[in-house]
């Protein structure tokens, strides 16, 4: 007997060849972008030493490039960009809330521990 109390959302996900073509085009674009960013990161890392004056700038640009890469992976490869906005928020908002809190508390505690250690030794 066929169940009528379930909706197979999986069946709605189909698309035709024309749509597939544009999706593939987007995938190739993201591939090139991710590769280029990685190459730039490695070049910067190899050329600029950590004791140079512009290192802090490079460091933060690494963080920015990583977040950009992560954004493209999550939104395009994992299709989160194509999901309902509410699904997006349910995934992203709790995650960022926890992780920002964790970063904040770790930095705060590390500084405090450093102060204590400096006083002791």
């Amino acid at each position: 007997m066929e169940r009528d109390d379930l909706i197979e959302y999986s069946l709605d996900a189909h698309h035709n060849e024309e749509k597939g073509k544009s999706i593939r085009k987007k995938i190739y674009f993201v591939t090139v972008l991710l590769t280029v960013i990685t190459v730039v990161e490695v070049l910067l890392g190899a050329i600029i030493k950590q004791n140079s004056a512009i290192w802090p700038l490079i460091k933060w640009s690494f963080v920015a490039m990583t977040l950009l890469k992560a954004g493209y992976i999550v939104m395009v490869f994992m299709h989160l960009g194509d999901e309902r906005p509410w699904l997006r928020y349910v995934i992203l908002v709790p995650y960022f809330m926890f992780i920002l809190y964790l970063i904040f508390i770790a930095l705060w505690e590390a500084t405090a521990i450093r102060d204590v250690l400096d006083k002791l030794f």
Partner: protein
Amino acid sequence: MAAHTVEMDSKTLWGGKVSPFTTSYGKLMMWFFLVSDALTFGGLLIAYGFTRHDALEAWPIGEETFNSLPFLGHGYPLLYVALMTFILIISSVTMVLAVEAGHRMDRKGVTKWMIATIIGGFFFVGSQAWEWYHFIHGSEFGKIELADGSQAIVKGHFGAIQNFKVVKAGSHHKKDEVITEDLMHLFQHAGKDGHLSGNTPNQGMITLHDGSVAKINKSADHDLMLIVKKDGKTNKVGQKIEGAKAVSMYYSALYSGTPNRVIYGANLEQNEYGPQQYAQFFFFITGFHGFHVFSGVVINILICLGVLSGKYHQRGHYEMVEKTGLYWHFVDLVWVFVFTFFYLI
């Protein structure tokens, strides 16, 4: 009151049956799992940052530690790990192409791209095995404890050892015997046990296991540089010593005759790269990620078998491919962060 009520259908009211996310249960649960797993990795990387923040200059820099390529030796900072990153990105691309083919019910396309993804996964796991082997094995120089009690890592090109010529017979080796095998291993072992002696770098003496003493025939090292990683009486963390001074400091410590002044490679008790936590974090974070990749490959193989058997085609949709794809992309996503925070910064 009737004027204030609005007619709503069950879709808007989330009244059961209809998912507000228009997503199947399985896909939603995969997302929830990934969020929790991402928090685990986030916690690990933040703990790493916390520890590093505490150690400051003593912490090894990625390009100091990871600068080897298979068959080519040292001197290629970060190129290997960049290659690993590229492999994982490409296998992520083949996975998303498999998902796209699934949406068109193109069974051949799904099979093709799934197999490509699995091959990419195997390449990555293999690369990681090589990286671990290299990390555990260590460099030719190791980390040395200098005369003032400071510890320094050593950069440069190690001059090859040609042979050991026995000058004093032991229970196994005769006098004037020339030993040509397993030289590096014997040399490092003797270094750890304090069985090396001599006054000039390339004319040291080695005491072998059987009690025989041999003369070391070795080419000169090039571009030796000591980078101090632990404070001593005179040398401070971050200090760099180059040239003839570095050579004499390194060999006077190596040939001092005291055991345990040199550390080669890494294990869970000591490592040659920097503070002890560094190796622990390396093993745990890359190991945990590698375990994810490995399980991802296993899941991909199982799903690929399902595709080959036509199970999903019969079902009318390839959502299983999409779900395993989510997991596979997540593995790539984590590596993007590990790459930045462990290797680049």
